[in-house]
């Protein structure tokens, strides 16, 4: 018995170390930010103002625009990316495909590029005299250059394209590794029963990948809700807030305008609440029925 207590103590020592670090670097800032979200004022002159930040939030058209934009990205971009990633992973898992390594690397490569670097390159590709316009002009698809980044609709399209390019390969890797864990005999049995490859995909591959699809959907949702680098570097939130995301708005509130860290904290808690709600929904819809 005595022996056990001593072991326990040592165990607690190990755990205590990480609890201490996690508490200090995760929970303390989280609670502090929550407290901050009930304060308002310029810079360091903060004072508690109760729920005014939250009521301001509901009447703040810029916040509502940012929220709408972010949800738009989410609804359009995440499904496109998940489907593309699935599609690529199934193609690349085919053992008869030549140069598989090359294709895998090529599709995964975007995921290792720096967010800022690729954003800047996208910005130049889609500028008025950028390579995309040159291409479309030379192919006579358009007569006049499209000002992608100055048009509210096209600017959103560019952002969605950019995130999709950057993250599809990343999600594909998860599917690839999951696919390799599916026993080939399952497919063999299906083929003997006369299942077409489309049937195999929908009846075998997708159900077996479900936990991974859930995982990638949740991480992509969280990632897209926090989208910042692309928006700031490609469009700067413009034209006229039409691509502004919630995170970019938090940055503006803290660093571009006269700083109001209290209100910025309130806005950032909206992301937290959204992530929790969306993850719960996704668990309910796609999760294991336990």
């Amino acid at each position, binding site marked *: 018995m005595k022996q056990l207590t001593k072991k326990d103590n040592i165990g607690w020592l190990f755990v205590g170390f990480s609890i201490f670090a996690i508490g200090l670097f995760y929970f303390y800032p989280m609670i502090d930010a929550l407290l901050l979200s009930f304060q308002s004022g310029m810079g360091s002159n903060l004072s508690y103002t109760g729920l005014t930040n939250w009521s301001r939030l509901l009447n703040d058209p810029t916040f509502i625009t940012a929220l709408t934009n972010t949800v738009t990205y989410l609804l359009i971009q995440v499904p496109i990316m998940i489907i593309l990633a699935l599609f690529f992973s199934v193609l690349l898992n085919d053992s008869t495909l030549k140069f598989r390594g090359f294709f895998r690397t090529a599709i995964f490569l975007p995921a290792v590029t720096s967010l800022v670097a690729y954003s800047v390159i996208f910005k130049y590709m889609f500028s*008025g005299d950028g390579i995309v316009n040159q291409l479309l002009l030379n192919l006579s698809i358009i007569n006049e250059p499209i000002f992608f980044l100055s048009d509210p609709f096209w600017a959103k399209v560019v952002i969605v394209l950019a995130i999709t390019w950057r993250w599809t390969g990343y999600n594909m890797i998860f599917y690839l590794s999951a696919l390799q864990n599916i026993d080939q005999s399952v497919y063999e049995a299906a083929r003997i029963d006369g299942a077409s490859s489309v049937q195999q995909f929908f009846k075998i591959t997708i159900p077996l990948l479900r936990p991974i699809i859930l995982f990638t959907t949740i991480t992509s949702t969280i990632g897209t809700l926090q989208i910042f680098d692309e928006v700031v570097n490609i469009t700067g939130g413009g034209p006229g807030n039409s691509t502004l995301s919630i995170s970019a708005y938090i940055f503006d509130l803290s660093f571009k305008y006269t700083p109001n860290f209290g209100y910025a904290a309130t806005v950032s808690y909206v992301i937290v609440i959204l992530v929790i709600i969306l993850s719960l929904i996704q668990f309910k819809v796609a999760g294991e029925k336990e």
Partner: protein
Amino acid sequence: MKKFLLMFLLVGMIGLLVACGNGDEEATDSGDTNDTDQTESTDEGSGEAVNITAWAWDPNFNIRALNYAKDLYDGEIDLDLEVIENAQDDIVQRLNTGLSSGTTQGMPNIVLIEDYRAQSFLQAYPDAFYPITDYVVFEDFAPYKIEATSYAGDVYGLPFDTGVTGLYVRVDLLEEAGYTFDDIVDITWSEYTEIGKAVKEATGKDMLTLDPNDNGLMRIMIQSAGSWYFEEDGQTPYLAENEALAASFEALKALFDANIVRLNSDWSQFVGAFNNGDVATVPTGNWITPSVMAEESQSGDWRVAPIPRLEVEGATHASNLGGSSFYVLNQDGKEAAATFLSNTFGGNLEFYDTLITEMGAIGTYLPGLESEAYDMEVEFFGNQQIYNEFVQWTEEIPAVEYGIHTYAVDDIMIVEFQNYLNGQDLSTVLERAQTQAETQLQ
């Protein structure tokens, strides 16, 4: 063995705690991208030189100016200045994070802040800056700069460059359209638009280039009419009833309707547009001169005219865009920093002569502006005495109170201007902007 492990862990924990305890002194520098040591400065008077640091953002402009100042400094306190380059956005961000956490560690002694943002910093962090009222004779500076750098009866900023605006014009393109340079001097924005249409027809080139996300031209227009986004208190939004603002909306929309605006989406495309010869004019601050002159093949083709005026009461041909001033942080070394500024930027004629002859930078120190150096004829601009003209316009810039929310309202105006362009009614968009500004700026 177990005891040894336990000891090891305990020592590790203590080490961590100690490191945390020291956080105040060391951890704050973690975001520092510069390898430079931010050495502590103490005013020991004689003997040791006082180390002070300064942050600025443009190596061709304000940093160069600081380095000239360093060479020319001959004040009482022996000091050693270190100039550190940071992008302007980074300076804003680091000041905000540093000052709001209440530490001056890792902060510079002297920092350059854009005039539009100055009030925001001064009011958000009231004790963080050191008033330099006693160090400089402020009557010697352009009044609009003093207005921008003062707070609660004290002057905090030492005015540096002027953002006096001008209309840079390609005379060769004007002539192709049948106009001369004189036709574009002292005109209104609607006359400017007419010339623009003719230029577009004759040459196929746009009259100017604008970034829809940058509202600079609107700010130029309203300040030229002595107006700003706020009432005189610098707090109350003044948008719905603001005639100058309404006139600037109309003038800007006319430019877009005439199809003479080339869109750009960032600084390099902006510079590229006139360096490549795609636009006939550039209405902006005089700090663009070096960038215009960078395209040597266009030498002789450019002139500088005063900016067109709005058709409202009190409209002038002089305005300001950007411009910045130096501020001293309230920490050890502040006396040395203030002395340095007062000895150089605060009234050293030789220094201001160097600025204009070496880099074409126009200061706001009025006695310095009387120097003969400003009469220099610039070959690139067809031997026009451009600096002389800028100096004259500087004196005519209407002083306005920028307040603390310029950039917040600026973003609202950008959105509402897009709505106006898309066909919404002018009074509707301005009233909506007013309501939004009132809710947002509380």
